[in-house]
Structures are given as C-alpha cells and as structure tokens.
C-alpha cells in the first residue's frame, strides 16, 4: 500500500519512509519483504519516534518538508477505507465481535481525504492548504503532561528488562506505562503481543482478556470508542 503510494509520488519529490515499532525486527521482516519497498523501511524497536515525534498508535504519520521541518503533526494515517467498517453486523455474531465492529463504524472515514491531501502536498508543496505552519504543527500536536514523559521512561525500562531476559520486571514497568499514558496504544499493543492466550496461542486482536494485563485490545477498543482510537486527521 505505502510502496504503491511511494511509486506514484516519488516523481513529484515525495518519499515514503516506513518505521516499524516492533520490539523484534524479525516480526516485521515478512511484511517488509512482501512489500519489497524501494523507499527507506526502518525499525524503531525503542519507540523513539513516540518521544521525538509524538507517535502514539499505528498507523500514524507525519509530513516532513524538504528542509526537515514538520508540516503536519502525527495523525492517523489510513489511505484506504477500513474493511472492518464495511462489515454488516448480524445477530449471529458473538457479542464481542458485534461491539468491535460497531466501534469501527464510529471511526470517522478519513482515508480517501487523507490520501488526496498527501497527493495535493506532493504536487503543490508549501502552497498546499494541507501543509501547516510550524506554529500550527506544534499546536495541533497532542498535549504532553509529565505523566506521558514518565510513561516513556517506564516503557524504556521495560524494554531494557525484557532484553536482559527479566520478563516479569518488564511487565511491571509496562503496566506503569499503560496506566500513565492510556492513549498511547503503541505501549499497550507491543506489550500485549508478548503474552500468549490462555491456550498458548499467539496473541491476536480477537483474543479474550489476558491474565497478565487483565485486559485485551478489543475490550479497550470498545471502551475507548472507535471515534477516540487515534488522532484522526483534521483536514
């Protein structure tokens, strides 16, 4: 998807750069190799772009101009309508699935407009109405109270613990990070995927509540609400 956009817009001087927030780069490798990107495709195991750019979920994107200056802050970066939002909800579906699909329908449908905005910027550069001033970029970025800074530090101590093989300590730090900054889904989703389901299967979005964290993606998605799941682009 991003490779196709890159090929389309590279002649206009725009390059896609993808950054995978995977603790284990090998988890990202199959996706990268399938996409055969001709654009830079990077790995950020430490979630440094959370701290440095304000990324808080995936997919999110920032726009950077030719001088290395942001012209749009982090925002949800879908360029294709969600197939989940189009699924018809039926009485036969399990309650959990109906709740999740219902929240997908609450997400504002911004994909086509966001893609068109990127194309407009690629064509018109600074003259694009979608390219914001530095002041607007800063003002439109999310608030950062001290709790979010503390969450980043706790997440990083969890990573260090995980890497030295102390998984229990990592869980402790990550629980703190999740509590301090609940809207940062990258901290939660990364940690949850390291826990298997009660029957030993790999974690996935449809799974039931996990024992370790006492929650699940679907529970938190429904509780948060689709409309609040990411920072939707204000175009």
């Amino acid at each position, binding site marked *: 998807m*991003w490779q196709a956009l890159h090929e389309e*817009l590279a002649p*206009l*001087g*725009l*390059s*896609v*750069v*993808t*950054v995978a*927030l*995977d603790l284990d*780069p090998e*988890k*990202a*490798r199959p*996706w990268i190799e399938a996409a055969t990107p001709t654009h*830079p*495709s*990077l*790995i950020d195991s430490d979630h*440094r*772009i959370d*701290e*440095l*750019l304000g*990324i808080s979920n*995936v*997919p*999110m*994107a920032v726009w*950077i101009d*030719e*001088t290395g*200056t*942001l*012209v749009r*802050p982090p925002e949800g*970066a879908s360029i294709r309508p969600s197939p989940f939002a189009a699924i018809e909800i039926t009485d036969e579906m399990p309650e959990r699935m109906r709740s999740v699909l219902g929240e997908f329908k609450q997400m504002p449908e911004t994909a086509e407009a966001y893609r068109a905005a*990127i194309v407009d910027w690629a064509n018109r550069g600074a003259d694009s109405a979608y390219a914001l001033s*530095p002041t607007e*970029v*800063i003002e439109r*970025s*999310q*608030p*950062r109270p*001290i709790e*979010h*800074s*503390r969450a*980043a*530090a706790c997440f*990083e*101590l969890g990573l*260090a613990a995980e890497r030295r093989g102390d998984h229990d300590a990592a869980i402790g*730090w990550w629980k703190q990070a999740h509590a301090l900054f609940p809207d940062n889904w*990258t901290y939660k*989703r*990364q940690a949850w995927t390291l826990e298997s389901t009660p029957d030993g299967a790999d974690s996935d979005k449809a799974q039931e509540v996990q024992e370790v964290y006492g929650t699940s993606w679907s529970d938190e998605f429904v509780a948060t609400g689709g409309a609040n799941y990411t920072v939707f682009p204000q175009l």
Partner: protein
Amino acid sequence: MLLNTLDVPTDEFEAATGWAAKPEGMCKGDACVRAPGAVGADGTIDVASVAERLGMALVADDATGTWALGPESGGRALTTAVVPEIVLPDVDGNPFGLSAMNGRKVLLVAWASW
C-alpha cells in the same frame, strides 16, 4: 534515554533526546530553554538539572542501578517543528539517518506487525 550515570556527554544527550547544549541554553531545533547549570564543569550534561528544567521524567530502576529519562513535557508533544536527526536501522541492522532525505518531502509512516 537509558542511563548508567547522571552525567552524560553532550553529544550522546543530543543524539538520544534531540536537545543540544548551546550558549543560550538547551535547544531543540529552533526552541531554546534557559538552563543554567545544565553543563557541569567537566563538560557533561547534568541530567538531573536538565530533567527538572525541561520537565523530563527521570525514573530510577533500583534493581539495576539505572535510570530512564523521558521526553520534555509540560506543553505539546512537539516542542519544535524542526525534526531532530533520527538514526534508525533497517531490518538488517544498517543505520539510516533521516536527514539523508533533506531535499525531498517525506511521509513518515509508523506501523507495526502487531
């Protein structure tokens, strides 16, 4: 930023946090904050002092005798629109500095396998 000591060389501190020690104070992009005492007599960053000044959470891990330093806070997630140099590896471990893209527009997309 993970720390084994609270006195850190200025270049290491800048590479990790984007904040550089300059005559006018601690600066990130075009944003500067006055920070007397930020750089000690030995030329290293006094992390505790800078953390206090910039609202960076400094969290100690007593089990390992290490610390982690969070990003600046008290305002917005972005302090400046100028992107600091960010060097990240590709999937084979080859480092790539984002500044290599200067001269082109960049759509930087965060994703994950999860």
